[in-house]
């Protein structure tokens, strides 16, 4: 009986012990701990944390802020690259045959709206619940959160157009918000956030990752440019030029070197870093984690985003060092497609814009300090991906390996090179575009020529005098000092690598000519930076004379590209459908009657 009693006692003891049955999660927090300055800042960092697409294991490469698929591969700037069977969804994108189930747009949707906008709204809501914040601190938080919200909305808008839901911290049920909007409503929402942010954010931030008022204005200007609202964009651009305190860096390449991250030209950079304990350098720009040279001597993953022959041809210049607007793509600049690395190949001697060999790495030309490009052996699968290495701009120097690119495993290309998302050169050329549109020819000329002038300051050096690279020495022509350049005298490092010339425009005959020059300059200056497709889309809406026919441009590219590869056989770009990505089918299914699909899908 004593036993029985104690038994019953035990039963009561334990059943009363709610404490015993309360096990709270470890290593995480409930919302209430963030109702203070430190907490909100931590949440804000969390909202910045996905800007670099570093969420690769949650979203894939389709979420990259560099938009290499939508902006570059789907345009005439670049190919998917790699191999036919790798990243199959991008095959459909390259050929403008995107299906609603393609996971790339789905990832962009997820990162921009599911993660980005949601986190910003969450922060704005929590700021509203937090008492005792100093006004200054609170306003800075509000401004940064709204800047980020605008940025994520803007990125979604680029890809999906006006068919995105406008959701704020006051939206009671985000899942009930339709994605059909009045004309300009999305733009206005983005600009409203940026205008608010610009009114509060400082001239400069002590932490370079945070936006300044100029970043807000620059992004607002870029947003206006998408709708060709030059009237609204112009004053913002002019103000940045006049009062922003930014100056062009001396060299074009300063925008693509780790050493000159966060420089005098930068308005807003996507911070990339390595060696912080994140797997696979996940806080470098993971969204372009596949886009590094593959195989052979350099050997990284995975050889995607190879520049197109069309882009290379676009760098051709005439006797005055000016673009060959009409006939640039009639004949291809000589390439080594189908030529073995061991076989002889003479790089072309045509004169080209010097930015070509910073943007594109091709056979026989030095590739940063990685040596002389060996051609086919350095390409993952040349018959498919074409003769050019993956886009060079986000790459790094061999001398930076293991310090600014520390990734182990297969994803070794991720590095600390920031993506200069907004910079003064953007502002100059957008300002020039505004000027061209309104016939202000001197202003357009001024800014275009400033950019071209700068492009002449630094050119790729190292003239290779042999047409068959010795197979026997690697790194052949690689290194950071002259002594490293073990080339047996077959490279003259005092000579330019190719025939470069870039001339200044003396004058524009009319607005149309000015606009064409500006458009060309935008293409060359920002080539492979994920803008081309969106630029073609907006220029398609310009009045005749200035208009770039997007469909005609891309379909002409498709046809001419068959000279190099067979990949684009039968591909057709259809205006009215292909200029926007489909709303992800899964989201359509989850919000029936709320979300509407794009036209044509």
């Amino acid at each position, binding site marked *: 009986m004593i036993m029985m009693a104690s038994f019953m006692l035990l039963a009561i003891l334990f059943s009363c012990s709610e404490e015993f049955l309360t096990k709270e999660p470890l290593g995480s927090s*409930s919302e209430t701990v963030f109702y203070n300055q430190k907490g909100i800042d931590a949440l804000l*960092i969390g909202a910045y944390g996905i800007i670099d697409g570093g969420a690769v294991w949650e979203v894939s490469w389709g979420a990259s802020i560099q938009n290499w698929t939508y902006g570059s591969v789907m345009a005439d700037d670049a190919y998917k690259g790699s191999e036919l069977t790798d990243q199959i969804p991008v095959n459909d994108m390259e050929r403008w045959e995107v299906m609603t189930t393609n996971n790339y747009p789905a990832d962009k949707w997820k990162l921009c709206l599911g993660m980005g906008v949601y986190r910003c709204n969450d922060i704005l809501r929590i700021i509203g619940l937090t008492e005792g914040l100093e006004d200054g601190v609170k306003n800075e938080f509000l401004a940064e959160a709204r800047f980020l919200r605008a940025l994520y909305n803007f990125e979604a808008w680029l890809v999906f157009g006006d068919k995105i839901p406008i959701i704020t911290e006051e939206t009671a049920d985000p899942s009930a918000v339709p994605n059909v909007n009045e004309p300009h409503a999305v733009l206005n929402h983005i600009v409203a956030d940026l205008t608010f942010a610009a009114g509060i954010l400082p001239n400069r931030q002590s932490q*370079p990752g945070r936006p300044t008022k100029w970043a807000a204005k620059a992004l607002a200007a870029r947003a206006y440019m998408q709708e060709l609202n030059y009237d609204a964009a112009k004053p913002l651009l002019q103000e940045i030029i006049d009062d922003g305190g930014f100056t062009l860096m001396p060299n074009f390449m300063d925008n693509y070197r780790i050493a000159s991250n966060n420089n005098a030209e930068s308005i807003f950079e996507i911070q990339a870093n390595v*060696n912080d304990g994140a*797997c696979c350098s996940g806080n470098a720009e993971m969204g372009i984690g596949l886009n590094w040279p593959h195989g052979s001597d350099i050997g990284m993953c995975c050889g995607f985003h190879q520049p197109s022959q069309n882009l290379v041809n676009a760098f051709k210049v005439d006797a005055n060092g000016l673009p060959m607007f009409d006939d640039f793509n009639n004949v291809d600049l000589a390439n080594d497609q189908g030529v073995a*690395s061991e076989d002889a190949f003479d790089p072309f001697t045509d004169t080209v814009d010097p930015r070509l060999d910073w943007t594109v790495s091709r056979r026989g030309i030095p590739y940063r300090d990685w040596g002389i490009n060996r051609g086919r052996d350095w390409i993952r699968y040349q*018959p498919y991906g074409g003769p050019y290495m993956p886009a060079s701009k986000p790459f790094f120097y061999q001398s930076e390996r293991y310090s*600014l690119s520390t990734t182990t495993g297969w994803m070794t290309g991720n590095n600390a090179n920031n993506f200069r998302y907004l910079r003064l050169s953007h502002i100059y050329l957008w300002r020039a575009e505004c000027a061209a549109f309104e016939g202000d020819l001197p202003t357009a000329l001024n800014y275009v020529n400033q950019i071209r002038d700068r492009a002449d300051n630094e050119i790729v050096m190292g003239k290779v005098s042999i047409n068959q690279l010795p197979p026997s020495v690697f790194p052949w022509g690689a290194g950071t000092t002259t002594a490293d350049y073990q080339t047996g005298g077959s490279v003259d490092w005092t000579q330019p690598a190719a025939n470069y010339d870039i001339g200044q425009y003396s004058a524009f005959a009319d607005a149309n000519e000015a606009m064409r020059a500006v458009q060309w300059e935008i293409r060359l200056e920002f080539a492979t930076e994920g803008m081309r497709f969106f630029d073609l889309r907006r220029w398609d809406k310009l009045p005749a004379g200035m208009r770039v026919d997007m469909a005609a441009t891309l379909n002409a590219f498709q046809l001419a590209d068959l000279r190099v590869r067979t990949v684009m056989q039968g591909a057709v770009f259809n205006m009215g459908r292909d200029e926007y990505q489909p709303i992800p089918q899964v989201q359509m*299914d989850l919000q029936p009657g709320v979300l509407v699909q794009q036209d044509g899908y």
Partner: protein
Amino acid sequence: MKRLTFLIALLVLSSITLLAQVREISGRVTDADNGEPLPGVAVLIKGTTVGTITNIDGVYTLSVPGDAQTLVFTYVGMKTAEENIGGRMAIDLAMLPDVFGLGDIIVTGYATQTRASLTGSVSTVTEDKVQLSTAPTVMGRIQGQVSGVNITRSNVPGGGANVVIRGLGTINDNNPLYVIDGVPVGAGNSINPNDIESITVLKDASSAAIYGTRGANGVIIITTKHGRAGEKVNINLNVRTGITKAVNQYDLVNTEEYGEMLWIQARAQGLVPGTNYSHPQYGSGVTPVVPDYILPAGAMNGEVDESLYSYPDYTIYKASKPGTNWYDEIYRNAKYNEVDLSASGGTENATYAFSGNYLDEEGMLIRTGFKRITFRANTDARFTKWMKAGQSIQVSYTDESGDLGDNGEGTTISNGYRTQPIIPVRDIKGNFAGTKAPAMGNAANPVATLYRARNNFSRNYRVLGNVFAEINILQGLSFKSLLGYNINQWNGKYYSLATFEASEPNRLDGLSVQNSNGLQWNWYNTLAYVTTIANAHHLNLILGTEAIENNEEWNGAGRTQYYSTDPKFMQLDVGEINQTNYGSGSSWALFSIFGRLNYDYLGKYLIDITVRRDGSSRFGAENRYATFPAFSVGWALTEEDFMAGTRGWLDFLKVRFGWGQSGNDRIGNYNIYSTYGTDIMHSAYDINGTNTSSVQGFQPRSMGNPDVTWESTNTTDIGLDAIFLNNTLNFKVDLWRRYTMDMLYQLSVPQVMGTATSPYVNIGEMKNTGFDVELGYNNTALSGRFRYGVSASISRYHNEIMKLSDDVEEEIIAGSERQINYTRATVGTSFPEFYGYYMDGILQTDEEALAAAQFGVYTKRGHFEFRDLNDDDVISPDDDMDYIGSPHPDFTGGLNIDLGYGDIDFNMFFYGSYGNEMINYVRRWIDLGQFNGGVSRRALEESFDSPYLDNNADATLPLFDLADGSQQPSTHFIEDASFLRLKTLRVGYTLPQQWSNKLTLRSLRLYLQASNLFTLTKYSGLNPEYNVYGDGSSMGIDRGAWPTPRQIIVGLTLGL
């Protein structure tokens, strides 16, 4: 079982009865077969718990009250016998063997029952069946031996088994609950299977409901060996040694044929070799030319100055002219060695069982292996007439070493088919060669991978056991208290050494270490009351409480760049960059009250009622407690008078019916909480622009649902147990239905609602129906010299999702491989099924292609024709994909054939599965050329337009042009994976008793055993058996799993 017989015996002994007119009865109990004395037989006065046990000589003495009428003799393996006392003072008995164990004591939850009195659906596996296999894990060993239990084994050394009982009750965790000697923990691969005395599987809710919230997926109760009272010391040495070898591999083309394949590919892609096609290795001619070197690419003899070789920057690879067979390079004759030493015995007041085991199992792939060392001590003692206590402890050490990746595209098995034959294993200086040579794809040299991972290990230290005390309070009333514990310490060490030979090399040597430790304790207290009223009503009542708490912690760290790769030097301290670390923990707790009543009337009418009330930390305060009721009834018809006429051929017949509710609480520990968390990847940012560091922030991590509660499953079971033909034929069948309600489903939340882990809600419903059949026949001939027996089990389940969410269109889409999903599930389907297009053959002509429904630009001559389900002449994923196959078998079954003649015994065990299909994802690589890896002979010879084909109508594969469309999920990838496998064939010889006695041995037995001698299947992959991977939603996708090896073992069992 033996232990429990003993426990009951002790319990009986310790009852204090003071009744008048006591007299002494004594006697001797023997085995009717051979006349040997039987020690340890329980002798009870019927209807009471008064009794004793026989001593070493089979002799017993019992004080019997004057009114006692009958004595009951029970002994494991013998038919329970009753003897009328009458006026006798000496009662001797020769016990008859109980072939089908009606009198066996079966361990059920917190109690035991005789087999005859069971009313729930319970299956058992005995020691001899556990010993048939050499699988390293307990569950791996009983594959095919129990009806209703589907087990799929992994073939990596030390590989575990996936166990599903009676279909999939949930889309969440379908693992059953394991209870080892009263401790609710899984066996993993650290329990010595030789220590197992019996395994009981509680399959229906009426038997499993005693485990409440954890019983819905069934319960597997494992009991280890104990000594027996009155047993002489029994020392056994068991040694076995053998060879394991993989016997199948993919049929891939050689180096020369690979060139042919490339040229076929070029033509398929519209190129004209000799004109506009060129391959870095095989040249640009009209026909391919195998080069002498592949690095430098395509070089011929005389063109390469080998003196320039410099590792790693300038390495030189000769072409492997005949072609490297990567499977030959990584397969080996692996050694298997096991030594097991045990001793057990007991006096009347104490028993003991000690064992030690050493297992060294080399993997079939080079430089992989599994080692296990275990020690066990099970001891029980009776301190006084009314109290006894005991304990059980196992200490184990396991070590899994090498690269044991299984069933994924990055594993060595997969790299075996992904690496081209032209690549040599090593370069001209003996360093590894690989895909660094141009146009070689991006696979990893599998030999190099296995070599570099040779020092990788995953080690587990485990202490598992219990202590208990049992007190007899009054006659028939006893109290038991048991404290169980399970302590785990796990350490892993993984080297990632530089892979300079790879096209996507890792250039930095890295090391990561991982650790975890866990402690789980459970404490249960039960009050048991056994009584018989009026000699007819048998009552057995148990009331109990149990508390369980589980705490785990884990951490890990890594660094890269080491001065030396000597494993002695490579310690975290000396790594130079990329310092990473992580760590966290988890815990849960459960508190329960339960009760169980067994009642029978004269053994004819049986009733079992169970109730358990559980409180769990995994649920919110409002929903913390739930009650799970169950009952079952049985009717032993053969006990009825009106069945007297059937006794000539029907020995036993019982029908059973049970209904019950049980739960599943394994849905994660913290679903009720909404949380924010940090994450270096997703919430950190280099806000300071440092290039090499980031600041940690927070992100929404999970959306909690405080209303979440457990899944509950209602099971109905109708069963029949029968024994026929003078105890030679037994038959057991169960028809069952499981219906799961409140199935937890992670609602698909639109992304605009945030991407934190969305909450689980109790919304889904799942139905499973099926039957289990067990059939056995045992007999002897030639006056007992020849023994033969056949036993078979057949199981079937049909699984159907009845509800996922309020949206009937809701789908679970899973099984994503290279951006293509293969499996899916929705209301009305099983979980999961294959999803894709119907492939209706290959379009033979341009005209056919024009007439076919168009799938973008894919539809053309030589490509697949997909079925246009909605007849709109367009193939689209929304309209033309469908559920096209199922990984679920129609039936699974096992068949044992036991033969014996004199001293020779023979066993054959077949295991099979019928009607299950598999997605052979490997074919995307080797048949369709994904990623420039190895290519199948079939692709060479049977692709459309292959020069090996006389007629394209015979083509089984499309144009080898690597088109995306061919890779879309379709019936093309679905294969029938039914199989029948001779799992075991064993011949044994036992030395005749008189000879072993001369050697002063108790017994000596030698045996030869072969496993997996043949497999009949139409499946073209390496292993039709590997059907489950990861979570259930990706079931049935073969990504290149380790094949089931053939194993030949010689064994020796020696008794002292």
